[in-house]
């Protein structure tokens, strides 16, 4: 009897094993977790050269894409679970109860690319001192984002402490800024400008060569602190200014990816040529186009006129039609739709110009214009940039929308230099404006709307102490609910009550790339996730 049971059990085990083997054999490869493959060189296209190599000074993706893989940062955004924050050189961290002290434990044994120097907390202090308290003659593009920091200390080789002046809900996310490359403290002490023209980091790739106007080459850092990474032998960034030439480079396989992204037409062109060899990643983008209205010029100094201008725009229809030809898609307020503090659709539709009943909005717009004494057929100009994507289609669309409320708006397209000059001097009735960020953070996105003079990018030239105060309050809010409420009040005042300036559509990011490029997830910013640490090349 026992023997029979043993036989049955043996049969069961053999049967189960066979079933498992067969199941595995017939499971499509894509359904199994793929083992990353080591080796290969990733070639990617970048629209322009990095002006300098210093992340603390630059604001362009053209610096981030080729340079970021050479550096580590303190914290980073999780590419699998944005906006979750992970440690990069920080092993762990704790925040004091009063929210005024952030203590970071730094990983041990991290080597700089010279293969000798170990990264210590001193390097992190020197890096953040340069960013937050730059010495005379040193430029720091994001100094303003760290106004809450009182001091940075390095009490031991593996501990960094940030002391804040006030508790800040945005501080931790700001430490995950992709621009904050960790530099060597000794080098900075000798020459704070050294990193503008040289590379020496602790990132997954070592610098090999930069030929300005042509290409950038890097090789794997064998001493990288994260065991088993990176997968690639190296990468090569090729600088191609022309958009069509970049599309052609990806289409022909001479570049496998372009991290900033292409237009819908570019995507279709590549997919049509290469079919399923191409994978397309699409998603929201922390960028939007907006209209700066000259609040100091008649009749735009009247909030009724400004309200009429935003009421005329059928954003919901634009979202459907323009997204087919341009990289603009999402209807949103002052924060990216879908992000933590953004308005819900219900909240948004209560704001002037965001209602889904466009006829009612336009009727109200005409009434407001009449009330403000703006006659039918009044002539104004709208200045736009001479860039096709996404400025041109949006410019044409808006002029058409304003005609529907009886305004005769002339679209004036200007080259970059004159455009920036006019925008800065306030020489316009209405002008195209835009904003891009590296993360969804109200402190960063709301700053633009502060009074002219307080915010350097308030091109609408209004001054509003109420907004300035609301900004400060939300930046120091103790709870998320409180912050959210303050942001809604801020948004209502900017876009609806005063209609100082208004967003049109938020962008969407389209990254068609060769399917063999694995381990890179598109995040909602072209500045993020560029260290290439997890990227690998499949055989097919």
């Amino acid at each position: 009897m026992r023997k029979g049971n043993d036989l049955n059990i043996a049969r069961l085990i053999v049967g189960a094993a066979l079933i498992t083997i067969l199941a595995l054999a017939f499971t499509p490869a894509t359904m199994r977790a793929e083992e990353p493959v080591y080796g290969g060189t990733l070639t990617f296209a970048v629209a322009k050269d990095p002006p300098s190599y210093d992340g603390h000074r630059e604001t362009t993706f053209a610096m981030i894409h080729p340079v970021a893989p050479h550096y580590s940062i303190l914290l980073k955004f999780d590419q699998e679970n944005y906006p979750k924050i992970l440690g990069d050189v920080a092993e762990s961290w704790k925040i004091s109860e009063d929210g005024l002290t952030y203590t970071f434990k730094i990983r041990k044994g991290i080597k700089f690319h010279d293969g000798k120097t170990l990264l210590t907390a001193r390097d992190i202090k020197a890096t953040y001192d340069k960013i937050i308290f730059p010495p005379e003659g040193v430029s720091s593009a994001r100094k303003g984002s760290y106004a809450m920091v009182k001091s940075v200390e390095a009490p031991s080789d593996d501990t960094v402490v940030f002391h804040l002046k006030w508790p800040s809900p945005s501080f931790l996310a700001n430490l995950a800024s992709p621009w904050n490359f960790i530099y060597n403290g000794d080098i900075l002490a000798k020459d704070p400008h050294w990193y503008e023209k040289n590379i020496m980091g602790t990132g997954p790739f070592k610098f090999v060569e930069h030929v300005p106007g042509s290409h950038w080459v890097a090789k794997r850092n064998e001493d990288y602190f994260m065991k088993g990474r990176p997968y690639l032998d190296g990468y090569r960034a090729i600088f191609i200014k022309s958009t069509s030439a970049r599309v052609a480079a990806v289409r022909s396989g001479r570049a496998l990816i372009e991290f900033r992204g292409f237009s819908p037409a570019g995507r279709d062109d590549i997919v049509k040529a290469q079919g399923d060899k191409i994978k397309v990643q699409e998603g929201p983008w922390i960028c939007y186009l907006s209209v700066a209205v000259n609040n100091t010029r008649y009749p735009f100094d009247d909030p009724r006129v400004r309200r009429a201008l935003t009421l005329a725009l059928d954003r919901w229809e634009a979202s459907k039609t323009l997204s087919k030809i341009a990289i603009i898609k999402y209807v949103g307020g002052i924060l990216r739709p879908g992000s933590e503090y953004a308005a819900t659709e219900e909240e948004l539709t209560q704001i002037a110009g965001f209602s889904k009943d466009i006829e009612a909005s336009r009727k109200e717009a005409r009434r407001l214009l009449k009330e403000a004494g703006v006659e039918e057929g009044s002539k104004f100009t709208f200045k736009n940039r001479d860039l096709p994507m996404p400025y041109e289609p949006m410019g044409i669309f808006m002029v058409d929308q304003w005609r529907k409320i009886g305004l005769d708006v002339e679209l004036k397209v200007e080259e970059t230099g004159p455009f920036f000059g006019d925008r800065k001097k306030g020489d316009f009735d209405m002008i195209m404006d835009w904003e891009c960020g590296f993360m969804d953070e109200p402190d960063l996105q709301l700053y633009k709307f502060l009074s002219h003079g307080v915010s350097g990018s308030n091109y609408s030239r209004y001054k509003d102490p109420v907004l300035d105060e609301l900004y400060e309050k939300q930046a120091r809010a103790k709870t998320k609910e409180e912050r959210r409420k303050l942001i809604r009040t801020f948004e209502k005042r900017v876009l609806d009550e005063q209609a100082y300036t208004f967003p049109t559509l938020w962008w969407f990011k389209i990254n068609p790339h060769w399917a063999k490029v694995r381990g890179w997830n598109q995040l909602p910013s072209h500045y993020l996730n560029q260290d290439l640490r997890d990227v690998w090349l499949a055989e097919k």
Partner: protein
Amino acid sequence: MHRYIIKRILFMIPTILGVMFIVFVLMRVLPGDAVEIRYAEEGTFVSEEMLVQERARLGLDQPIWHQFVKWIWGIVRLDFGISMWTGRPITHEIKIRLELSLQVALMATFFATLIAIPLGTMAALKQDTWVDYVIRIFSIAGLATPSFWLGILMILMLLIYFKWLPPMFFTSLWKDPGANLSQLIWPALAVGYRYSATATRMTRSSVLEVMREDYIRTARAKGLWEKIVITRHALKNAMLPVITVIGLEFAFLIGGLVVTEQVFNLNGIGKLFVQSIAQRDYTMTQTLVLLVAITFIVVNFVVDILYAWLDPRIRYQ
């Protein structure tokens, strides 16, 4: 002859100074500066304080006359300064690209001369025959075909029929001649064809004119071989305007291949030129204009010397 050369060299100085002054003023008249364009482009917030600091660093806060004098003084000492955009020395930025631009210009000139002189001469000698018609069609087509369009056709042809594309990166001729030529031969052919068309037309009309001169009739009357009449008497005299055309085209090619460089993604002087103007990189644009102006002036000078060598009457005038 020596006096003639010295006089021509002295004439170059006011021309160069004039060019320097004009380009300096024109760049300042354009709206926007390197700092504004660099930081406003991305749509991310940058404080006014930083913009002021960056302008001071580039010397843009100094009075215009001070900037001009500083630049001129630098040029006198052969110090062209640093690029306002990259911070690297201008000589370094130009050096990287000059080899490529110079090589394309030389190769295109070589192709053009190789095609233009025999074809133009043949067309003139066989005037109004089918040979002349074929050559005229070939050269008029060259004039009507933009180089960049021909370049696009070449790329498409290479891709469709040979599944091959020229390399994207420049390799020096001395390092790897194969890789170098496989990249640069295509733009040189595309540009050389249009270039040859101009020179062919000029050679034809010049040879036609010369062949009607009295000295040609005299040479033939003396019983000289037709070959000697053409090579020694006709061609030597007919070459004067052809040399001018070839010289000016060569000078143009150094900085004027903007669109062709774009099509073949060449990292040349033309691309750098357009880029530096768009970025309001004053120092770079000024130096590039100066470089192109000097190239034109030197080429003109060489052409004039050749004129004097080919036609002794010019020296005595």
